[in-house]
């Protein structure tokens, strides 16, 4: 065999040496990952500022403290723990079965929700119905006035979210509404110093936008990018995100939109991350953040579902994002059922 590279094994030696260096470097940088080369690579990617974090690590630490990296404002001595507790106790059960809520502590309240399946389907419906038919008249008396026109309603509305909201903006935006959305946005990085990918707000990062403009309604859709992380951590951070937004926009109603499912194929491709059951569980727990005074929950993931309860392949090519032509379903649903007065 002719040897095309007569360098006496120089490349082999250099390669082995750099691998050795990478291993040593990875061991020095941080011991977080099992694989030192991986650690070093993440170090190069993320820099020294943030600790390298792998999916697996977050997954196993079910009760890890929230990794909220860039808080825009410091909360007045409320830890994230304190924030979540009142949120969850209030819960949609206030609207559902008022008699149980009063004495239900946080821990017991979680249990029935996770075990009883029917609750999942009920929760979204019950929160959405009062909104459409009789706009929460019992709760907030001052909103009994006649429904506004779409234009009026959406002129002070912000849609905040990940790439799915970018698609909403690109292919079916509601005239007058403001969008702040970015691919790969999640509850950990929503307040990063990155601007929106949507043209109308592309000059701001989120804190600037919230400081600059006043919104009456803020619709949030987050959760699919962090679906592989522990639900505890995601929900905790979700509620801190809500708290931070409230500080900027004390008047605004915050509306949590349910995470759409993924297609069956996508769900089965990586069950530990993209399982639709995980998405259901997350939605269930996000619904529990709603107090129906300031924070509301809209469950409409099923409008994109096929009969198996996964996103229909007719609506999505990659299993996660809607086809461009399908975003109008989302818009129509919001216009018809998604207005909160």
């Amino acid at each position, binding site marked *: *065999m002719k*040897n*095309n*590279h*007569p*360098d*006496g*094994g*120089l*490349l*082999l030696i*250099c*390669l082995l040496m*750099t*691998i050795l260096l990478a291993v040593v470097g990875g061991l020095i940088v941080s011991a977080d990952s099992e*694989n030192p*080369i*991986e650690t070093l*690579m*993440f170090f*190069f*990617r993320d820099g020294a500022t943030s600790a390298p974090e*792998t*999916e697996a690590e977050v997954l196993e630490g079910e009760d890890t403290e929230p990794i909220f990296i860039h808080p825009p404002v410091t909360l007045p001595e409320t830890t994230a723990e304190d924030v979540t507790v009142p949120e969850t106790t209030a819960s949609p059960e206030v609207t559902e079965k008022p008699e149980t809520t009063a004495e239900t502590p946080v821990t017991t309240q979680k249990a029935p929700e996770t075990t009883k399946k029917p609750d999942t389907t009920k929760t979204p419906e019950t929160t959405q119905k009062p909104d459409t038919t009789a706009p929460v008249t019992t709760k907030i008396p001052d909103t009994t006035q006649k429904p506004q026109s779409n234009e009026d309603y959406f002129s002070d509305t912000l849609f905040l979210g*990940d*790439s*799915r909201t*970018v*698609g909403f903006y*690109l*292919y*079916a935006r509601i005239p007058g509404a403001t969008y702040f959305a970015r*691919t*790969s946005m999640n509850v950990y990085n929503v307040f990063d110093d990155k601007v929106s990918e949507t043209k109308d707000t592309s000059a701001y990062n989120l804190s600037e936008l919230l400081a600059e403009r006043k919104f009456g309604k803020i619709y949030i859709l987050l959760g*699919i*990018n962090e679906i592989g992380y522990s639900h505890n951590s995601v929900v905790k951070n979700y509620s801190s995100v809500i708290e931070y937004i409230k500080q900027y926009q004390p008047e605004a109603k915050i509306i949590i939109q349910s995470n759409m499912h993924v297609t069956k194929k996508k769900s089965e491709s990586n069950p530990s991350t993209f399982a639709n059951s995980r998405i259901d569980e997350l939605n269930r727990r996000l619904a529990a953040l709603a107090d129906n005074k300031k924070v509301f929950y809209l469950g409409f993931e099923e409008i994109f579902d096929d009969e198996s309860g996964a996103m229909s392949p007719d609506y*999505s*090519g*990659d299993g*996660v*994002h809607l*086809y*461009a*032509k*399908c*975003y*109008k379903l989302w818009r129509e649903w919001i216009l018809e059922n998604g207005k909160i007065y």
Partner: protein
Amino acid sequence: MTFYSPGFIFIFLPCIVALYALAGKKLRNAVLFLGSVVFYLLASRDLMSMAILASGLIFNYAAGLFIGIAEGRMRKLLFVFCTFVNACALLSPKIISIITESFSVSLPEGLAIAAPVGFSFYMFKNMSYLRQVYDGKIKAEQSFFALGAYLVNFAQVLSGPIQTYADWKKSREEGKVSIASINSGIYEFIIGLALKILLADRIIRVWVAGLYGIGSIGIDSISTPLAWLGFFAFPLYLYFEFYGYSLMSRGIGRMLGYETPDNFLHPYMSRSVSEFWRRWHITLGEWFKENVYFPLGGSRCPKGRTVLNLCAVWLCTGVWHALCFDGNGINFMLWAAFLLLFILLEKLGALDWIIKNKVLSHIYLPVVILFSWAIFNTNILTLADLGTYFIRLFPFFSQTPEYVDPSDWVRHFKDVGVYMAVGVIFLTPLPRRVYDKFKNIKPLAVAVMLVLFWLSVYLIFCEGANPMVY
């Protein structure tokens, strides 16, 4: 596990090369065979796939021995029968899926057979082995491990190249494993890795990247500029994906002390479609020539017969690709028919005036080939979508759909424009020539290789942790 997994690059490959080098000549087949079995299990993550491969190996090991000793009519009968069995095995997963889909019957759980990873390449090697035994080019392999090492060889089991047994055996007897051979293999391996990770994986983002990929937007809702960007992006991706893989396979071969046949020879520099296909996926073309075209009489027969032979070859080529890739078989058959049309016209001399013209031929070839890849495109799953795609490419006769973002191509152009430009340069022999000139300046060559390697590894890790960004 693939060639691009960190576990393969940093653990599996060094281990198997070291074991192979340390093992004596007698043990090498065993090391390679067992190592390949481990690799295949990690790659397919499916015992059933491994079992199917193993039964193919056992069947053809026995078949080879029987054909080797049989004589006369018996020999022919045995060969025809065994080849028939192999062909049926190759086709069966697809046929079963077509039947179950068209009659919407579902097989009981566990019986639903998907074709194992790399099955079409594997079966082609099996059939070529039997053919060579039957033709007397080689003696039937007596050692089970030796045949297993050839057939399941991890360097070739996923996507070829389809090396013949005679070639493999000869090359292995001549070659030897040394520091120099391993070193030389690393060069090819890194070049292949870089082409795949730095070019192919960047460029294909036009079709598959999260929210903005054509596949996510939906073919009916892309702007015409984006359709054209995708038109050029897919062939570039396909070439660097497969060429990169082939170079890595060759590099691994060198590390194990044998030479792998060329799979690509700058095909886009060809001047006719026939020539392109002699320089693209060469080992597959050779297989069809040896096992279909020549047995039918090749071109040494009346013109009408030659035309029929070519039709047979391209029918098989269409079927084989339909087996290799998911998606609609009809698109692949259409693709094969499209290419066949031009090959026949070339064969009959109707296009000589183009092919013999230096300028025209270099316009004709890319245009035909690019359109053939547009039909072939594995991101377009149905015939209807293919029609829609061509309407988006040529929108003059139809209305622009309502949901089109006219500036959707800008982001992609910024994202992959540079990579595509570099890719076009790498279609020509120029980079190879530059490389051949400078590879003797050792420190420079080594430095470039190290940069390419670590850059690729870096991207593999980043994307591995973040496989898709929404």
